[in-house]
């Protein structure tokens, strides 16, 4: 074994360890954003659980606004199946897009419901209704916050994956696709850009 062989062997070993390190880091960052997604999932599930109660309470008061209520229930069911698909595959662009859209529709439907509720002061003052709305708002807060953490984790993964040298190996190690961010259309949050928005 000549000196050059040894040097080659050592370099080979370095390269191998380095590559193994990249593999590990890709796996770690991917797991991180998956974990971050499950934080959102818990809150979203809570949100979806609250909605049927909300609709039931409202039904007693609003007999003539059936379409509004039905729209809410439908949107909620869509969102639930969207969530199921997304949690099976967090970061997958198609699943994230579906969830985004479903959530958008749900927010829209809930918004319309709120407008309607304003016109019925009895309903608005109902204890149950107040409690449910309150909890819904608080849950939405938590969703927004966890969503930001998820997006931060996804960005970290994507950035690492695209830099050199991981970019060479990402495909072979099964990290070919970029993970998708989760962008709900909370228009309020968007408008508050200058402030710190969680």
């Amino acid at each position, binding site marked *: 074994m000549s000196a050059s062989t040894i040097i080659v062997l050592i370099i080979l070993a370095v390269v191998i360890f380095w590559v193994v390190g990249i593999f*590990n880091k890709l796996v*770690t960052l991917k797991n*991180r954003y998956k974990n971050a997604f499950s*934080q959102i999932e818990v809150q979203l599930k809570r949100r979806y659980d609250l909605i049927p109660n909300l609709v039931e309470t409202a039904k007693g008061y609003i007999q003539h606004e059936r379409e509004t209520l039905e729209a809410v229930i439908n949107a909620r069911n869509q969102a639930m199946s969207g969530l199921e698909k997304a949690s099976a595959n967090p970061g997958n662009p198609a699943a994230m897009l579906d969830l985004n859209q479903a959530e958008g529709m749900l927010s829209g439907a809930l918004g319309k419901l709120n407008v309607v509720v304003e016109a019925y002061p009895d309903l608005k003052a109902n204890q149950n209704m107040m409690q449910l709305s309150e909890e819904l708002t*608080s849950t939405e*807060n938590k969703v927004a916050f966890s969503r930001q953490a998820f997006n*931060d984790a996804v960005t970290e993964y994507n950035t690492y994956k695209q830099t050199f040298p991981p970019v060479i190996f990402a495909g072979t190690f099964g990290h070919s696709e970029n993970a998708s961010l989760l962008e709900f259309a909370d228009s309020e949050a968007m408008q508050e850009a200058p402030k710190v928005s969680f």
Partner: protein
Amino acid sequence: MNFFAHQDQARSNTRKLVFLFICAVITLIVITSLLVIGVLTYIESQNEVSINADVLGSKIFFQVSLVVICVIGLGTLIRLGQLRGGGKVVAEAMGGRLLNTNTRDADERKILNVVEEMAIASGTSVPPVYLMEDESINAFAAGYRPRDAVIGITRGCIRELTRDELQGVVAHEFSHIFNGDMRLNIRLMGLLYGIMVIGLIGYHILRGSRYRSAGSRSGKGNGAGAILMLGLGLMVIGYSGTFFGNLIKAGVSRQREFLADASAVQYTRNPEGIGGALKKIDGYIYGTEISSRDASEISHMLFCSGLKNSFSGLFATHPPLQERIKRIDARWAGMKDVKPQPAGDTLSSAEGVSHFSGTGSQAASTVLDSVGNPTAAHLAMAATTLNAFSPALRDEAHNTIGASLMIYNLLLALSDKDTEAKQLATLKADLAEKDFLALQQIEGETRDLPREKYLALIDLAMPSLKQLSRVQYREFMAVLGKLMMADEEISLFEWCLFKILRYTLDERVDRRMKSRAITSLAKESEVLLSVLASAGNENVTQAQAAFHGAEKYLGLTQDLSFQAHIGSNTGILEDAVDRLNSLKPLQKPMLLKAMVTCINTDGKVTAEENELLRAVGSLLDCPIPPLLDGQRYL
């Protein structure tokens, strides 16, 4: 043996480990050299080429040593580098899923509650819990210190075990955290990686192909076969490394399992907890096997052996299950007749008595004995404390935004009217509108909370706060800073809160500070004790008395003088405590003893005294259990 003695023993085990590691490397070099010489000699004999054996021998030996050392060195250095991220690196590598503290799943809720109780009872922040989706029953604790510790648990565990049994397992894992095993184990994992890496890669490939081929039976037969051969080949080559790795693991960590079992019984006073768990595992159809491909890397850290074909006898990483059960059962039989428990439990007769009672030095000894040594009384109190928090408050502590808002509210609660107004203005400017509204809604909850409970609440909120992304964390700390400076000075509580939060949450890796003797930290100790004495005594004379009563426990030859002018100047305190962090481990008890004596001179504990003790304890990685019931703040 108390916390400090255990930690010391763990440290000497680490030295033993390094020694064995070096022996293993040398042996590997010799074996590999002989192998290479053997192969070359064989080739020689086949080709009838003669080479001078002597010259060749030493040259080969040198070259082989170089390669082997490089491979091992690189592997070890890289792994140790990766592991600097702390316990969560291990949990993520094993494919664990972080349990959401907000979960509504009954099983998950159960384990989280058990872990919360255990953490609050011992005075550490609640560690994150990771779930491994295995049917088997197994668990681990990973990390270097309580601040980066995580608990890993299998699905089988939370599904099959009763709450008491879960508590036994969790107590066992916590004792690993407190006895210094956890740090020893993670270092073992890093150090041995270099020796075992070739075998581990082979094992990893083999495990991977087993699962893959199960799914796709047809086609790709040749490809799968080649990969299998590669995996097998690597395992064979790496076998001698694996052999030594396991030998070392067995030598260093096996006995610690007995100790952890015993500690679990001691903390919970319930041998049927951990005993029950062990017995269930004994008869359990799925056993304790972990399916993760990297399971063999953490085989020594698991509650029970995690590999299907684990070695027995000399190379076993865990003592035999039967033996472990027998040791607990025998104790159980003993305990029925004998009270208090034999050996090592000085708090047995002091159950229900606060560790601050009694006169100065007696109290100090009792406190030191309870460091890293929670008792059933502490556990019971933790359960009560947790139940006393309103569900709304617990819910807030369990989610990330709620926890941050809750912490802001704690600061608001302790401010006078003017400061509070300023702080609210800051919050209104810095938080999003909906978050500010949420803050005001939570305010009622925290305002009613008695101050003694603040520390437990902060501990409870930790896992949620650990979920803050890097950006969110920076923003959180920035807002906290502004709130603290609203009244132009930082109070002791604010300082303690900030230190505990930053120490536990900051992801930046700890720079290892040189261990210094207390004699070189005399000035800093003087500052700390002065602040403590002033915090607990309004009257300067009394403060002075407290100070002088305490300083002799530092074992310094020079006399310290009480610095009345410092008062509660947290700026000066900050510098002093930062330097005290580098105190030699064996001298930490002296500092803590001095602090407790100082607190107890007047027989009463103020809020600031307790918080300062707890903060310093956290920074020194010495978990100080909370005050037991019956002890109230002034």
